[in-house]
């Protein structure tokens, strides 16, 4: 190669290196986004807007910011378009951390407390201490116990394709300078990110599908009581005795019967886990998508292969089985917390206002004034959110329609009170009053004569009831939704 040729090669190499450096900045920013790193937005914002990549990134951030804000507002209003708008934003650019807090609050208003908790934590991890962070910390602490489950990115925001497909580099010709190994690495990273994006958890799936929560809680109950309780959790003492070399014959028989008697563990497990998919659909293929269930699958295989070793009292094998048993027992406990959380719904001003707004939107009767008198603090009741919403919307709908037919001014008011029973239970009474004196329904009419089988089933699931009472305060009648207060997790007396 002559001098001119060497200079030309050097110039090409310099251009390629500069392109690679800019690409590296972009790739690094994009990688942060791909793994949902809270620093992604800052990395995008730091890209030099004078470069083509940076200019496009800043433009994408601006457009996405507007979409995120609109999506959060829609989410808070319970508008079904929220998901579409937020997904569009998530395909465009990372979320500005200043929006973590409003998004957390919007999730909370929709009853998606695990996602809300994750957003609160992300906000608190980045924001400097202030009155706002103090408030966010209090709001996080007030969420249900089950939000302590490990955080994973919400699936709503996890399906974004690579931003590089929207921001093609004008320096693509220089890509020849990137060694094939880097391309392979990028491919591996992309595959890993894609695989991670498909990961979820039963808790997140339950949050995303409130209509399925009763079925999920039922299936979790079956799995726990028919599988974990007697076949896994109950054998801990016996396995520990083998590991310590102190197993009595009666304990050995108990252990072998529970682990290896009757239906093989793997078959019983597959039956229970398969039920989730059969009942709820392919997205509930938990062994495939939920890492905790995948781990449980491995642990059960390990236990299944240890029969001979446990029979002869092999201490080392017992240690391995004990570790697996403890992980399974921990999953059982986590499932118990999940089921308990699903069966509780927080009744607060946000929920009542949301349900009232739903009904007003649906009926379009602005002449009827609908007033929500929220409880001073949130109250958890023993009911699935879906069931509670179904019942309360129905009662509100009847009240608004009745009020519209009655004398002016037409009014409907919603409030909540709590009473202590002699059993130590607390009863939550959600009262819906309206101004129409006619057509006072009997309890039977409220749930039966009108053919509201769904309402009746929803109330029976939570041991709730509907009744009619005198109204007072200028109202003509009062329908009461009675539910038991959820006392798990609370520590103070009423």
């Amino acid at each position, binding site marked *: 190669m002559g001098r001119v040729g060497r200079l030309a090669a050097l110039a090409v190499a310099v251009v390629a290196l500069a392109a690679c450096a800019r690409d590296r900045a972009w790739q690094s920013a994009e990688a942060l986004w791909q793994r949902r790193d809270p620093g992604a937005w800052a990395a995008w914002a730091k890209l030099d807007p004078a470069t083509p990549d940076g200019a496009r990134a800043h433009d994408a951030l601006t457009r996405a910011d507007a979409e995120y804000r609109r999506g959060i507002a829609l989410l808070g209003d319970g508008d079904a378009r929220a998901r579409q708008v937020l997904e569009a934003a998530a395909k465009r650019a990372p979320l500005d951390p200043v929006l973590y807090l409003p998004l957390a609050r919007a999730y909370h208003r929709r009853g998606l407390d695990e996602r809300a908790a994750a957003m609160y934590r992300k906000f608190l991890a980045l924001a400097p201490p202030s009155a706002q962070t103090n408030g966010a910390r209090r709001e996080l602490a007030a969420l249900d116990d089950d939000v302590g489950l490990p955080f994973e990115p919400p699936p709503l925001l996890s399906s974004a394709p690579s931003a590089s497909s929207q921001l093609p580099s004008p320096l693509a010709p220089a890509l020849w300078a990137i060694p094939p190994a880097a391309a392979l690495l990028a491919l591996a990273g992309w595959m890993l990110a894609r695989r991670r994006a498909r990961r979820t958890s039963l808790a997140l799936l339950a949050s995303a599908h409130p209509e399925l929560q009763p079925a999920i809680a039922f299936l979790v109950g079956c799995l726990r009581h028919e599988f974990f309780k007697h076949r896994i959790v109950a054998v801990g003492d016996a396995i520990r005795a083998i590991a310590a070399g102190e197993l009595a014959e009666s304990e050995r028989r108990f252990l072998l019967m529970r682990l290896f008697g009757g239906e093989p563990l793997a078959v019983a497990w597959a039956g229970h886990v398969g039920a989730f998919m059969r009942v709820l659909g392919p997205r509930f293929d938990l062994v495939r998508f939920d890492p905790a269930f995948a781990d449980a699958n491995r642990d059960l295989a390990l236990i299944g292969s240890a029969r001979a070793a446990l029979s002869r009292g092999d201490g080392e094998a017992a240690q391995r089985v004990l570790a697996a048993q403890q992980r399974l027992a921990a999953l059982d406990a986590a499932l118990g917390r999940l089921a308990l959380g699903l069966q509780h719904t927080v009744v607060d001003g946000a929920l009542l206002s949301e349900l009232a707004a739903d009904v007003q939107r649906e009926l379009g009767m602005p002449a009827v004034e609908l007033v929500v008198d929220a409880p001073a603090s949130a109250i958890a009741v023993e009911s699935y959110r879906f069931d509670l919403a179904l019942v309360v919307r129905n009662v509100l709908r009847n009240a608004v329609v009745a009020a519209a037919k009655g004398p002016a001014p037409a009014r409907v008011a919603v409030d909540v009170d709590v009473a202590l029973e002699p*059993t*130590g*239970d*607390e*009863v939550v009474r959600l009262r819906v009053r309206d101004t129409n004196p006619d057509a006072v329904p009997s309890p039977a009419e409220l749930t039966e004569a009108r053919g509201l089988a769904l309402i009746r089933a929803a109330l029976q699931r939570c041991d709730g*009831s509907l*009744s009619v009472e005198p109204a007072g305060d200028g109202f003509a009648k009062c329908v009461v939704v009675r539910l038991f207060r959820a*006392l798990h997790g609370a520590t103070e*007396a009423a």
Partner: protein
Amino acid sequence: MSRLLVIEDGDEYAEFARVFLADLEVTAAHSAADALAALRAHGADALLIDLRFDRAPASALVGDLDATAARLFAGDRERALRYLQDEQGTLILADLRAAGFALPALFVHDFPPRRLANLRRLYGDVNAVSSLDAATIRRALGGGR
């Protein structure tokens, strides 16, 4: 503490107490009326109370069935009866307290903390253990709250 009154709808608690709490004088009662009679006749230092009385006949239960049905279950007496059975132990305790017996009461039940606090607020010296375990029961009876 040497005299324990066990109140249950079966015999399991009393049987357990006679084997594993053998140093105590154990008396058994199967209803609120039995318990009141036993307390008036012999007295006791503490109560061990079963919560659920699902094997007891409806006529032996305390609690106003019709009022409970009207207040909590929109007039459904079947659900009200189930509730009275499920929570009978607390209602028996209410009757004993109303009759002036303030001795310590222990339930074998995993009450949520707030429910236990409510029971203490209503009935004074009340405790609970989550399983039939002699050492735990002794601690709970001996340690009061």
